[in-house]
């Protein structure tokens, strides 16, 4: 899919798609270069409608296009709409009805070119499934929270971390469980639709062996490249046989396009669509070159960028985990509860948060640096993580940071998170009530087990947590509030609510304020 995006981009220079609306309501599309002049463009249009070029009057953005100008000069862009009116009489200045310029293609040719591109996309984008496998792996902690995107980014920038994670037995456990993988995929309605329409796909997605293989590939750059090469070769073989071309096209139409739709229609709202986030951040998982770089040991720069706003609002445990213990979180929060039939990782995370026992544990954990060390040392995976990323260790040993983590704001944030997702209340309210359903129960248990492992030896000493914030949100989010004010959001209370819900992330808050936050 990434491949397709690239190829269309190169085409933009040459030809773009333009929509024409006639005054009688007819609509059609043509492909043309922006370099062509309006008069040439009219000639092209004359081939597609019954209005002669010299009677056409074209309007774009309210401006009447003049014959001697180029399309480019009016700022036309791909998929924009031009209106066409038939002039009352040939009053417009006479236009030479020159034969269609070489730069302009008829629509039928355009369509042909399109197919070619599409096929190219299908060809190299075909390893959809590696993408999916990896998607499954990254989804749980990559989807819901804006902050998690950062984590995800860091992860993809740091192949070692990625590998570490993939190697964690808990992650593998989850990925080896077709049930969980399936419910993860099925929680996206669009993905479900695709699968419903293509039962053969479901088989693939349900086959742990394939998922494992893709995961294996994601972990091992060599293997990944090898797989890509194989697929590409296979593709070109198929392509060269006569029926093969059609088959590929069908496959593209049936699978690739809906898949793309499923992954992109979330728009910029990654919360609503985990797969969109995946596409966005993981870049083209299916794109051989970038996959290479993603898992390329050569680029294994230790992750030295601080998170933009790691402690800004107590993204609570979620954010904390994200910032300082990303790998850890993946082990517990993320994949621990991925299978709930709720789209988006936020649901998963908040479910964790919602559990009073867990938040208490977090509290006690975070309030005591020694616990931290203890945990780190007890867990070989964590230790190696820390070894790979000295900064993490540093962060965790910084009492200031730890203190901030335990601040009442964090608790407050958790509360607002809970309010955000009231529907989850019924899902799980107490630790003992995890067996709400066969599957969710199992997964919850798995998550809790993981958690227990992580927190082993803590014993869960119940600590009373102060709940009143000692800093008013106006102060806490002062910067973000003024930013929102500048953008024109003047309702301070609403702004604060949005900022709280998004842990002080201005971008996400804006999305939320505009009601684009997703269902």
């Amino acid at each position, binding site marked *: 899919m990434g491949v397709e995006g690239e190829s269309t981009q190169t085409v933009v220079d040459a030809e773009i798609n333009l929509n024409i*609306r006639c005054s009688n309501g007819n609509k059609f599309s043509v492909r043309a270069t922006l370099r062509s002049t309006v008069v040439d463009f009219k000639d092209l249009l004359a081939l597609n409608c019954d209005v002669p070029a010299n009677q056409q009057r074209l309007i774009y953005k309210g401006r009447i296009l003049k014959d001697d100008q180029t399309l480019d000069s009016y*700022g036309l862009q791909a998929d924009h*709409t031009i209106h066409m*009116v038939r002039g009352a009489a040939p009053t417009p200045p006479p236009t030479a009805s020159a034969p269609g310029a070489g730069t302009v293609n008829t629509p039928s040719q355009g369509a042909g070119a399109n197919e070619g591109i599409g096929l190219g996309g299908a060809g190299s984008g075909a390893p959809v499934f590696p993408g999916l496998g990896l998607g499954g792996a990254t989804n749980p902690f990559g989807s819901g929270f804006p902050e998690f995107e950062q984590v995800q980014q860091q992860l993809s920038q740091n192949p070692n971390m990625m590998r570490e994670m993939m190697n964690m037995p808990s992650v593998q456990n989850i990925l080896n469980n077709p049930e969980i993988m399936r419910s993860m995929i099925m929680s996206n309605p669009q993905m479900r639709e695709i699968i419903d329409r293509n039962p053969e796909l479901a088989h693939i997605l349900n086959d742990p062996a394939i998922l494992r293989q893709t995961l294996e590939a994601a972990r091992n750059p060599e293997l990944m490249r090898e797989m890509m090469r194989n697929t590409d070769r296979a593709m070109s073989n198929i392509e060269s046989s006569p029926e093969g071309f059609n088959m590929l096209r069908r496959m593209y139409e049936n699978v690739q396009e809906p898949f793309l739709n499923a992954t992109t229609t979330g728009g910029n709202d990654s919360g609503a669509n985990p797969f969109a986030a995946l596409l966005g951040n993981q870049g083209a998982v299916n794109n051989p070159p970038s996959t290479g770089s993603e898992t390329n040991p050569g680029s294994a720069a230790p992750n030295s960028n601080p998170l933009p706003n790691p402690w800004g609002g107590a993204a609570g445990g979620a954010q904390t985990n994200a910032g300082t213990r990303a790998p850890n979180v993946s082990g517990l929060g993320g994949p621990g509860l991925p299978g709930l039939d709720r789209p988006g990782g936020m649901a998963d995370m908040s479910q964790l948060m919602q559990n009073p026992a867990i938040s208490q544990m977090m509290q006690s954990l975070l309030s005591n640096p020694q616990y931290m060390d203890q945990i780190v040392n007890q867990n070989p995976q964590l230790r190696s993580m820390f070894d790979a990323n000295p900064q993490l260790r540093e962060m965790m040993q910084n009492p200031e940071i730890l203190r901030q983590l335990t601040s009442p704001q964090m608790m407050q944030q958790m509360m607002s998170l809970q309010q955000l997702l009231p529907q989850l209340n019924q899902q799980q309210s107490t630790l003992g009530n995890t067996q709400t359903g066969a599957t969710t129960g199992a997964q919850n248990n798995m998550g809790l087990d993981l958690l227990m492992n992580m927190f082993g030896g803590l014993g869960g000493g119940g600590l009373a947590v102060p709940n009143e914030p000692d800093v008013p949100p106006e102060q806490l989010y002062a910067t973000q509030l003024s930013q929102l004010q500048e953008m024109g*959001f003047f309702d301070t209370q609403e702004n604060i609510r949005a900022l709280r819900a998004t842990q002080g992330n201005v971008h996400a808050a804006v999305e939320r304020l*505009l009601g684009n936050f*997703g269902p």
Partner: protein
Amino acid sequence: MGSEGSTVIVPRSFRLLEELERGEKGIGDGTVSYGMDDADDVYMQSWTGTIIGPPNTVHEGRIYQLKLFCSHEYPEKPPNVKFQSRINMSCVNQETGVVEPSLFPMLADWHRDYTMENILTQLKKEMTSPQNRKLTQPPEGNDEGRVDPKGLVLRCCIM
């Protein structure tokens, strides 16, 4: 979560950006297209619209250009709407081409939910009204007759 969004007042710039996109892509009822002349105008004030004379009226086949000016108070207050092309219409000042809010209820009774698209559509509808459809029109005014004020112009077109 989305429910909260509905109570939020969409700021001016977001609102105008949305209208810009709709105009460019022909989203909406599709009979409207509009955009800004000067994409660099950060205040997105001046817009130009075009109305294509509705069929079966004296306006048929004519293209009317309008200028819409969105003050900083938009969308709380309606934009100034002014015909650049000459037109004989009951709600339009013959001298200046300005659409008189007092004669055009939509502007007089403005809602922040109204868009420029709505204005243009409504004006087009107005052209088909009994008092307007038969009015003698001046010779078709050169569309580019009135000089565009430099830079910021949005034109919309209604067909």
